[in-house]
């Protein structure tokens, strides 16, 4: 019989340094799955929009005076889209090993995204109607509020990727010492070999997801403001 797969008492001390491709693939597939989950989340709002609109219960879908300001809406969605485009361009730079340009674009994307969030908050307080003013008002506030949370989460992810690039900007090609890289001073070995190389994979996943979310923002712009 061949050597057993594991011995009794095999400890945690014997670890393989995991190749970074594993977590890289995890992250990219997770971004696809997350996009699927996000799609189904917002399908609920799209459904609510069209269902309540077609039903127009009591004539209260969109009573007189309820009209979302297209100016604010466009500004917010434009910020989201611009931020997603910047991340995509930054990924191209990162692939072409133009790390400095990526950092500029990543920082700009973060900034533009945050501006979008701030504009959204201002837009809420400047609408001529409140959440209680009928079906459209409900969908408008619900959809934009949850989109806000999703964008906020995505921007936090962007910040993490960007911060890693920034922190190790002088030593990008070589791995930092384990204690340094993990923030745990006791660590003597990497559990992921060359963890810095994961920035690329993260950026691929992030860029996909952020583009997808910006697409949802564009959809919200079409149904909430244009139609």
């Amino acid at each position, binding site marked *: 019989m*061949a*050597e*057993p*797969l*594991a*011995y*009794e008492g*095999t*400890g*945690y*001390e*014997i*670890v393989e340094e*995991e*190749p970074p*491709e*594993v*977590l890289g*693939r*995890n992250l990219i*597939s*997770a971004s696809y*799955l*997350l996009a699927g*989950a996000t799609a*189904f*989340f917002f*399908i*609920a*709002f799209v*459904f*609510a929009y069209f*269902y*309540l609109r077609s039903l*127009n*219960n009591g*004539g209260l879908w969109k*009573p007189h005076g309820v009209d979302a300001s297209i100016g604010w809406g466009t500004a917010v969605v434009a910020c989201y889209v611009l931020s997603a485009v910047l991340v995509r361009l930054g990924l191209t730079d990162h692939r072409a090993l133009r790390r400095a340009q990526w950092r500029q674009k990543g920082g700009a994307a973060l900034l533009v995204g945050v501006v979008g969030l701030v504009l959204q908050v201002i837009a809420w307080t400047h609408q001529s109607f*409140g*959440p*209680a003013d009928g*079906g*459209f*008002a*409900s969908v408008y*506030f*619900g959809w934009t509020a*949850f989109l806000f949370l999703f964008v906020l989460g995505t921007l936090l992810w962007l910040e993490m990727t960007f911060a*890693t690039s920034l*922190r190790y900007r002088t030593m990008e090609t070589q791995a*930092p010492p384990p204690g340094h*890289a993990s*923030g*745990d001073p*006791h660590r*003597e070995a990497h559990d*992921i070999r060359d*963890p810095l190389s*994961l*920035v690329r994979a993260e950026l691929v996943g992030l860029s996909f997801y952020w583009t997808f979310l910006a697409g949802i923002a564009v959809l919200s712009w079409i149904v909430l403001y244009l139609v």
Partner: protein
Amino acid sequence: MTAVAAPPPRPLWRRLLGFNLLTALVLGVGGWYVGWFGAHAVKGLSIAYFADTDYNELSVVMAYIGGVVGFLVGLGFLNYPIARMRGYPPSLREKETHGWTRYFSLCTDHKVVGIQYLWGIGLFFFIGGLNAMLIRTELLRPNHQVFPAGTYLTIVGMHGTMMMGMMTSGILGPFANYLVPIMIGARRMAFPRIEALTFWLLMAAGTILTSTIFFGGFPTGWTGYAPLSNEGNPGMDNYLLFFALVGISMTLLGLNMIATVLTMRAPGLTWTRLPIFVWGVLSTAVLMVLAAPVLIATLGMEMLDRTAQTTFFVAAGGGSSYLYQNLFWVFGHPEVYILALPGFAIVLELLPVFSRKPLWGYRLAVGGLLGVSLLSWFVWQHHLFVSGINGDLRPFYMLSTELISIPTGFTFLCGMMTLWRGNIRFTVPMLFCLAWFFNFLIGGLSGVFLSDVPSDVTTHGSFFSMAHFHYTIMGGLVFTFFAAIYYWVPKMTGWELNERLGKVHFWTMFIFFNSTFFPLFIAGFEGQPRRVVTYSSHLQFLNDWVSVSAFLLGISMLVFLFNLVWSLAFVKKPAEANPWSSRSIEFQLPSPVPVHNFDRIPVFSSDPYGYGEGPVPTWVAPAGAPAGSE
């Protein structure tokens, strides 16, 4: 291979002071009050949108959100994101790898999480069961109030919500987390921290739901139909937050499972060699990832209706009660298959072992699992046959609902043909699997009456449908849950469970389960609606029979509990590595499975069902084969 120095051991008191359950509870309570008073402050600013009732819904919601955040901070879930935000690159490991304290803290070992899930879900399963006992106590007499009418509805709602919410992760939580990485030859899940997060979110959710009794309970049952839920006491917010957290937990659990199976399979583990259990997990996880977000969105709308006075579900304000029903069942029907599919998978996984034959019709079985998973998206309006929505679509939903019985039939065929001419061993796990056939047959065939519109007119909303879904969910899921416990717990803990007590548990559970739920079909046919606190006195005999059976069913659960405590705490008979002579890879490892699963990553050369096809293959790894590459 690299040697990593173990972190320096710390004294117990120091460990208690760190990030763990104790800290989490303290910070959770603190966060609750921060949310409560914070929201009161907002209300003090008199934003006109918030409800003007004695209950400030916003403060209840914010208090619980604050509590959850504090709880997660206390467990240490924010440490990693904050480190990442400070620019440290990704890393995998948390510090604690040994000792009992890791079971009470954030631990990224998938085996620890699996065991945490088993005990955590078990706890809430028993709370849900206790509520069932209270329901049956109330229904002992047709028109007598043990519990006041409103409290009775809360008990019914807590029973249903606890079971439907917690048990969705009943098999994926404990068993898939523990076994999937081993079965696919990996050392970890794709996202170990998210894996731990799903568990602790579930525990926070369960606590929130249980505490609804301090906030007036909720009147809606597990479906939470608006606009009744708009009227509910603050206890309703507990329901909404519970299910939303369960939804988040489910989404992440499913996402993690799919990512793991997609990316971390060991060399040689092609799609046709994947254990059928992993296929079941995969088809369930797809439903989780896609269906649970719809639930979260729906509950989000309801939460906005209650706190911010939107009118999604209020007809008089431009909303619609149908909207809630539609959205809820778009989630809700996949949800019931989230409950059923892991049961199918466990039956198909265990039958080959105990009939000592290969799994018959592997591809058909996989097709059945995926087919159910796919079709479950197209049937939801059969819950709304008499609701008056889309009356002309009823023939379609009748057809699609009945079509689901075809892929379900694949599971029956594959299971039965696996038994055919086998050498069947009637072990405890096998008995539970065989009971599945009996229960699910009755559950499925009673479903025919519910899927048929003319027949559904009488059975809809009656005890008939209640008996039906108890046959499919309790008979389908809980029986296989116990099969999995008796089959895998010796592997997970390293100690054997008492077989004689297991058989006592099985037979009492099987008999009293049927004696409890079969008469309810008749009660439904006789016209007893669901969730009533009072019923026609001519149904008293049936109801008393059911109640007594239910109490005995409860006692059979205590037999199980006794077995668990007796075997694992007192007898402690070490389990063999392979007590069932299984060919599955987890049984080729020592019991319990070592911390790092494999010394070397295995290379698969066949599926694990080659009974009668020669000796168990050896998993030979070429030197230097990395983990997770195909």
